[in-house]
């Protein structure tokens, strides 16, 4: 690896049909985009050299993202606008890069820094209007805790920790839309559709989560 490397932070979307990709599929696809773009990427040292690249928090299969990120280390400086242009040319539309900028080596990793995730969850169904969904959410929140099955074992989420602020419910054609923020950490991640599905179940409403979009990721303390 060259002595000096340049840490390029790329922000991209995961949208349309490509929301069905898994995190691993997105990471492979992004590495291939970097190679196709012809960027001078750094390679890890060791027996099995690989591209030096680090990804932000994983998105599940089926969940879209509007501002996901990865860092890739380059061995030659390239103006960010040029890097963005080359990456856009070399990436399928559904994963198109939106922004590229250099960040300091001193900055913490993406997964360490970005612990708050903002979501828009669309609920559809004959009686999945905002009032009904809000009632369900309030019932779940009143418990303070939510128990979900994870690979056959129950996992308890303390909602005061995992939901740093109260979700809001608004109008949406054919149902409603929930805007919510979750906190990710060493103790796990609360999946928005699991939380909302539980809320719908509480009201016995005829409705279901029809789409989940992560609209942004941010560090603690920023709004």
């Amino acid at each position, binding site marked *: 690896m060259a002595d000096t490397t340049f840490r390029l932070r790329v922000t991209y979307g995961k949208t349309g049909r490509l929301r069905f990709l898994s995190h691993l599929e997105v990471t492979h*696809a992004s*590495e291939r985009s970097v190679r196709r773009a012809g960027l001078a990427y750094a390679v890890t040292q060791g027996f099995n050299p690989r591209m030096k690249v680090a990804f932000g928090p994983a998105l599940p299969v089926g969940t879209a993202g509007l501002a996901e990120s990865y860092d890739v280390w380059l061995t030659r400086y390239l103006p960010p606008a040029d890097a963005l242009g080359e990456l856009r040319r070399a990436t399928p539309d559904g994963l198109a890069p939106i922004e590229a900028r250099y960040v300091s080596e001193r900055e913490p990793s993406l997964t360490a820094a970005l612990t708050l995730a903002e979501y828009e969850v669309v609920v559809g169904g004959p009686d999945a209007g905002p009032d009904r969904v809000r009632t369900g959410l309030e019932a779940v929140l009143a418990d303070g805790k939510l128990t979900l099955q994870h690979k056959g074992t129950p996992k308890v989420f303390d909602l005061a920790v995992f939901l740093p602020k109260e979700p809001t419910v608004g109008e949406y054609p054919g149902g409603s839309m929930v805007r919510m923020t979750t906190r990710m950490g060493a103790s796990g991640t609360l999946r928005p559709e699991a939380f909302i599905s539980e809320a719908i179940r509480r009201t016995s409403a005829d409705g279901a989560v029809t789409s989940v979009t992560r609209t942004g990721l941010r560090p603690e303390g920023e709004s």
Partner: protein
Amino acid sequence: MTDLWPVVEPLLARVERPARYTDREWGALHRPEAPYRVALLYPDTYELGMANSALAILYARLNTLEGVAAERVFVPWVDMGAAMREARVPLFTLESCMPVAECDLLGITLPYELTYTNILEALDLSGVPLRAAERSDGDVLVIGGGPCVFNPEPVAEFFDAILIGEGEDAVADIVEAHREAKAAGLSRAEVLERLSSVQGVYVPSLYAPATADVPARPLEGSRAPARVVKRVVQTLSAHATPPCPVVPFMDVIHDRASVEILRGCSRGCRFCQAGMVYRPVRERTPDEIVRDALAQLRCTGHEDVSLTSLSTTDHSRIEEVLRRLSAAVRGTGVALSLPSLRVDAFGVEMARLASSGGKKSGLTFAPEAGTQRLRDVINKNVSEEDLLATVRVAFGAGWRRVKLYFMCGLPTETDDDVRGIGALAWKVLDAAREATPPAQRGGIRIGVSVSVFVPKAVTPFQWEGQLPMEEVRRRQAILRDAMPRKGVDLHWHDAEVSFLEGALARGGRDLSRVIERVWREGGTFDAWTERFSFARWMDAFVAEGLDASALATAPRDPDAALPWDHISAGVDRAYLLSEREAAMGGRTTPDCTFDGCTGCGVCQDLGVDIVLAGGSRG
């Protein structure tokens, strides 16, 4: 054309691996304006089909034709198939998400006998009648091709036509003939008659199938040829490797760039169908290989490139190719890989060049039999000394893992030959230990994989019987006892799967009834261990009044007719018979690319020549 995406999308939230069905990969080609539409079906899942080089070649080739769009189709996994039936969504192509039944042509690969039920699953999901005889003028034209066509009879009735041999030129001829016929308003029967005049195209409905004494022959009044002769391309140079194949998002098998550096192999192993049916040997030049590999890496962004063929280290200029390519990718983290290697020091040297100091993942060799006597019978010209010397060189150079391929049940095999596989594994293990520093010996891994010999059409062993299952199991027990307990990982093929493969490989037209019955009883994805039901197959053979044991295990009389006698790979029957005699006499036959013509007949019958990039080998 109908866009099914709005009805497909809601199904994807509840199925495994939805990326199988979404399209939109890098390199996927969308030509919505093209009036002539081809669906290319691989009769298994996306992740298996996307590893198939032939599909990638034909996809690229067809999409260069004016007015033609070729799109990919795979068989939906069981969960998706059920969801589609429930929602009444027909089988769709990936790119346009259009119904397969709305296409002009449906091309289906025949990669392996155990995928046959999936062909019916795909036709049924498409809403296309299963048998050619039931289709009418408006139905899509269903054409097969691929490795299994050298005995097409078990699936012949499901196809309107089957291409025998290589597709690069033939697919263009088929599309041209079909377009002209459509423009002229011909009936389906007239279209098929016209297609039968394209060289290499077999139209099953124009032939009376073989009986015990008489080979299949054209029906009276048909102008179809008495023998359908394999199509070949004269030289690979006329067809560059597709530079921008589709790059899957999913983790597929063989997920890498690949360049076919040569086609064909004339080493002449007598059990090997590929070695007989892909003749003659045609090499690409080093310039073409380096150009194609770098172009494909640039366009795909893959991190590995494989140099593929039946015998890559036999390429007459492989050393130059590897030196140039490894220099070109140095420092990028891109790895070169070679498939199974020639058993000699040169093979190891080439693997060392390919790995160029980086990862040494493991080497694969194929001695195929455990004793010299049996290796002479099958014409595998490898000696025990070659193998042990090769192992010493490999472990001395730092490799710690080798994999060895063998077969059980080869003609004339005795218990001593089976024990010989174990004895050879012991010697390989000892040689590996000797060549490895004591502190590193714990890392030594010898993999031994033993398949069951299945006689295939167009080989010198096409008349041999396959071992009955009980006998296979008895020999596998001998094998297990003869193997070192530690340091060797032994794998063998399932006796039931091999038996069925044998019954399907050499059967006739009547087998189509068995295949259809198995599919109707729920059989799909038979190549997947968890989906395979031997009982379902055996019940179907009984119900249709056919004897699976006779098909698989009974030797054939060389004077009787074979179901595939009307199909020619260019290899003469007389040559196959003389090779069979040589096998029984333990006499070996050299490779014509090293030692001159051995009279197989391919070059004369097909009007082609061996093409060697270096002018000569050896």
